[in-house]
């Protein structure tokens, strides 16, 4: 192990801010700024510790979901916009986001997941445009539910990066 780790450093900075700097400051403007800095240091620490795995899991879910959407759109491919959407999903799924020898940094993984979410965003727009024609169909209902299920997992994952950093640590401003 290489010590201090990056999270050791972040935690030490937060501790120092809270216990050495904050007790000495005078005045609301700087006090509120330092308060926010503490919250965000904790948030950054959680992201360093956990965001990588979260993005990896999210990426897998998105790829599976986009493949499901592609399969559904194949069954209704004569609808306006479907083929373009399918092509966009295919090209996103085929994209190579980094070389095999390149370490997957949080930034690069974020870019990958960002691209996958963009594909989902555009696919959802396409599905919403088809709603009037297909809303009663089982396959359409199922794919829309699959998207909602994904959204639920994503937001619950994100809570683990946010809530422990802020809740119980006092005023936000």
């Amino acid at each position: 192990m290489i010590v201090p780790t990056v999270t050791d450093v972040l935690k030490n900075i937060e501790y120092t801010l809270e216990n050495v700097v904050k007790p000495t400051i005078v005045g609301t403007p700087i006090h509120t700024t330092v308060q926010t800095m503490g919250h965000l240091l904790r948030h950054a620490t959680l992201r360093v510790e956990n965001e990588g795995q979260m993005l990896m899991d999210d990426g897998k879910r998105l790829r599976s979901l986009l493949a499901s959407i592609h399969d559904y759109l194949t069954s209704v491919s004569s609808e306006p916009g479907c083929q373009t959407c399918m092509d966009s999903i295919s090209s996103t799924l085929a994209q190579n986001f980094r070389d095999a020898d390149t370490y997957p940094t949080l930034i690069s993984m974020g870019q990958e997941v960002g691209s996958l979410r963009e594909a989902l965003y555009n696919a959802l727009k396409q599905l919403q445009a088809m709603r009037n024609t297909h809303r009663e169909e089982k396959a359409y209902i199922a794919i829309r539910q699959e998207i909602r299920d994904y959204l639920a997992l994503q937001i619950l994952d994100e809570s683990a990066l946010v809530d422990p950093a802020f809740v119980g640590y006092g005023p936000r401003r």
Partner: protein
Amino acid sequence: MEFTPAWLERYLSHRLGSAVIVKEEDITRFPRGSSRETWFINYRSKDDIEALKSIVFRLDFRGGSTDPSSLDQEYFMYERLGQTDVPVAKALWWEDDPSWTDRPFYTREHVEGSWDVPHYQDPDPAYDEMRIAISKEHLSKLALIHQLDWKALGFDKYLPAPTSVEDCAKVFVESLMSMMEDIRTSAIPLFLEAGEWLIDNAPIAPRISLCKGTNGLGEEIFRGQKIVAMSDWEEASIGHPAADFAFMQDFVPEIEHDGQKIWGLEHALDYYYSLSGIRITPEAVAYYHKLRSLKTILFGQKAGGAIHANFDGPIRQTWTGTEVLHIGKYVTASAIGIVPPHSGDRFSELNQLV
């Protein structure tokens, strides 16, 4: 452009047509603002040194505002409201001359008073009567706003206006969708999902009203128990007046005495009806709470994008782009039934001040 004494003296002397004096201690930046910069400037005229005057400068953060609506829309709101009985600080002038500033700003009067109502948040029942009085005062001002002839005043020059009471929510949601497409730096599919749900479940409005948007504790200026200026108009809209009840901060307290509720949302809606003749239902207020969370996503996305573009922005924007954005997403997701709702505890610290 920096708000230094030297710059302010040159600029205000130019604008006011007579020499002024500004000292370092006369310059105060409002520390808690999350959407834009607000500066309070005191100055004295060289012809009348004894008379201390104040003026407010308002501008976007260097990296961009958290607010998706434009600064000139905000200026327009103050200018137009100045023509009504709604108490607002008087808009003074708009400035975008590049010889003076690299960022447009506008100025307005500084109205003496405070957003802070002493003891309002003290849970001691001795202050319940005061809380109800404050609530009524605020409701009376909302009633005034909601009855304005927004069409004659030209508010639809900037604000999207529904053509029917059935369309109020749809227009609101579609305007948020449009703003999101303009400002987004990443894809939030939940926004699309929630927008669809909100349009599907939109309530019919009792009338089409000018709405303030952000309102309540921290947004209005008081002297004693009277509102002397209503501030923060950047989220104004035209539509269902229930939106203002949903967007309100703290001014409809739930108060019980001896097990009987003596004030709360239903009392407030009844009181508001007695003033305005406008009937708003609790269900409509609940709906607009959900719509508000969608708007929070928009603000959070804008703020996060601003910090991504300029890391030297105010740290408050980073908070808005992280926790606030997440809360907007979570509350929106629970509002449309995707995830379970948060416990009430999740929100108790959010509006607390150091």
